[in-house]
């Protein structure tokens, strides 16, 4: 068996980067330690270049467990772009906060190594190991603020939930293997299609599928498994929070997409309604929770729970059949998920970057501290306005087109359930606008508190904030830039 090392380029680049970062951290002393950040960023750029070189290829290696196709490459680019942005917002934060910097950069690069691998994995085993490569560094990173009891407890909570969810997911995977005799995603789909008749599936198989879905539900913080998210997000160092809220969640959605659409597509009649109801509950609970928050990080945490609900919506209308209409429904649903994840990454990392910029040197993170931010720092205030409007789905931002794609996916074939889901999306968007606009009103209309400091975000963070804000608006005005790219991404999944 020949290994296609070219197809593994991005992964190899990231693995080498992680080791170089570790070695550089050993040899650097004192303030020079922060130089591991540009080293990690350089490695990421190399990985991006290697990914772009593969663009358009269809390759597979390791007996079909590792696949390069348009889906895998698009998600790889999304994750690597996210890594660059997270590195940008991490530099000052970790250099000034007296953390274990080198170890942090090693852990974040390995976590992204797992993420970059996930969209290429076409086997339950590879998927599981990649998912754990995302989770285990994240457990450690959440607890990096060691002297803070609150951070330690957040990390413990995250760990317990993560380990439990993995155990439950593994039970489902073992039952699926016992049932089908294979761990390959396409093999499972074939075995299910060969042995099951729609409408009278074996209950044990359905239970196993639901266990796996529950496991991924924890990862994407879907209701009723969302309880860990606000506390973990609030307790973790803020760049780690941005990573968890965006990249780790996107990885969960990639895994869910793969198992749902590749392995268990024939059983969509069973899992799609469940995920639809979960999506409705998730966005409602997230938005209602966000309304009551006075800490911006917790507000964004609940908001990201709600956003996970939006992204879950298209799964609710997935079809199990193989006729043209069902395939079109699934394809549109998948494209909406992809588009929303791209938009979500741009606007949510931007929002967290502003929060980090405001909190720098002052530690201010209450919503009240954002009063008059527009007057104190037009850059941060303006950028935060753009990001919040986009998260709400306002015109001229990418958020609108992301929501539009979801509505489109829900109404490809008009069904009562699809309309209920779409109505839920509209109602929730209105609720969400209420708390986003409240924060924006504070930024521009209210006078700053007496002696409120002028935020000094620093160069890298400003660069990331400006870049992401520009991207939010540019993609909002010219959505074709991203829709044209994603339209070539198909849900073929090696079939």
């Amino acid at each position, binding site marked *: 068996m020949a290994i296609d090392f070219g197809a593994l380029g991005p992964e190899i680049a990231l693995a080498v980067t992680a080791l170089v970062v570790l070695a550089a951290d050993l040899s650097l002393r004192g303030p020079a330690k922060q130089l591991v950040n540009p080293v990690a960023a350089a490695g990421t750029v190399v990985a991006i270049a290697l990914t772009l070189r593969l663009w358009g290829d269809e390759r597979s290696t390791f007996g079909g467990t590792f696949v390069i196709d348009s889906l895998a490459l698009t998600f790889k680019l999304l994750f690597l772009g996210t890594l660059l942005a997270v590195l940008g917002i991490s530099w000052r934060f970790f250099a000034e906060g007296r953390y274990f910097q080198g170890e942090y950069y090693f852990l974040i690069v390995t976590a992204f190594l797992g993420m970059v691998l996930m969209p290429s994995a076409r086997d339950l085993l590879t998927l599981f190991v990649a998912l754990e*490569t995302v989770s285990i560094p994240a457990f450690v990173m959440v607890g990096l603020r060691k002297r803070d009891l609150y951070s330690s407890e957040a990390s413990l909570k995250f760990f317990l939930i993560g380990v439990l969810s993995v155990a439950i997911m593994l039970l489902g995977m073992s039952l699926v293997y016992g049932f089908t005799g294979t761990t390959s995603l396409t093999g499972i789909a074939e075995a299910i299609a060969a042995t099951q008749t729609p409408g009278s599936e074996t209950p044990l198989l359905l239970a196993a599928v639901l266990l796996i879905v529950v496991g991924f539900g924890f990862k994407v913080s879907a209701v009723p498994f969302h309880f860990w998210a606000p506390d973990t997000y609030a307790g973790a160092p803020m760049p780690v929070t941005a990573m968890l809220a965006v990249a780790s969640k996107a990885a969960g959605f990639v895994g869910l997409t793969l198992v749902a659409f590749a392995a268990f597509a024939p059983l969509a009649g069973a899992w799609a309604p469940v995920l639809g109801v979960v999506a409705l509950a998730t966005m409602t609970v997230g938005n209602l929770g966000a309304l009551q928050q006075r800490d911006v990080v917790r507000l964004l945490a609940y908001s990201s729970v709600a956003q996970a609900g939006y992204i879950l919506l298209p799964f609710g209308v997935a079809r199990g059949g193989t006729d043209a209409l069902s395939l079109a429904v699934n394809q549109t649903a998948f494209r909406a998920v992809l588009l929303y994840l791209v938009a979500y990454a741009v606007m949510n990392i931007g929002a967290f970057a502003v929060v980090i910029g405001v909190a720098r040197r002052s530690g201010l993170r209450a919503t009240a501290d954002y009063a008059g931010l527009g007057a104190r720092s037009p850059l941060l205030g303006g950028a935060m306005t753009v990001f919040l409007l986009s998260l709400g789905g306002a015109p001229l931002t990418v958020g609108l087109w992301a929501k539009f794609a979801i509505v489109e996916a829900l109404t490809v074939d008009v069904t009562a359930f699809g309309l209920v889901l779409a109505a839920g999306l509209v109602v929730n968007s209105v609720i969400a606008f209420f708390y986003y606009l409240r924060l924006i009103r504070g930024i521009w209309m209210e006078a700053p508190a007496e002696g409120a400091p002028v935020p000094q975000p620093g160069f890298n963070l400003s660069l990331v904030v400006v870049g992401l804000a520009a991207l939010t608006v540019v993609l909002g005005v010219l959505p074709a830039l991203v829709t044209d790219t994603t339209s070539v991404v198909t849900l073929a999944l090696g079939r």
Partner: protein
Amino acid sequence: MGETIAFLVFAGIALGAAVAVVAMRNLVHAALMLVIHLLAVAGLYLGLESQFLAVIQVLVYAGAIVVLFLFVIMLLGVDRDDLLVAQGRRAVAGAVAVGLVLAGALTFAFVGPYTGEASVCGSDVAPTGTEQSCAGIAPVLDADDDAGVAFLGRRLFTRYTLAFELSAVLLTVATIGAVVLARRRDLSPEDEDLPTGEVTA
């Protein structure tokens, strides 16, 4: 007949020791019960024709993981759990009810398709209806004559090579994570982080 007795003995020990882990008040005793449980499961692996995994189970689980548990128990000096259970009788009853439902549902699903004559591994009885026959690993083992190591290794180092390499990264992460988190000599304390914690409502 011998294998039936072996299964019943190991299954009884494994289940009993698992219950003991949950019920023991003394943490050291619980850890030792965990060892017994893991050894009994290793015995079950032997019965399932998976000799290599049985050895790995003893070496890694019983030999390394439980020792780690014992080490932490000794390090922290917390060998007694006086509270035993987290909450009142009603919550315990609820948890047990959840467990009974799960176990009952799974058992109900297994009885029938997997417990008939045809599900005895290597039997010649043809499966009927939903019954699942059991191919067994004996033919492969007879051909290989190395306790299934080649059988496992061929799969591990072709199809799953990437996962194998990734697990090396994973173990490095675990090592570094443990060093970072458990290190007691911290970076100098005067360099406190930025003020943190929740904003009280």
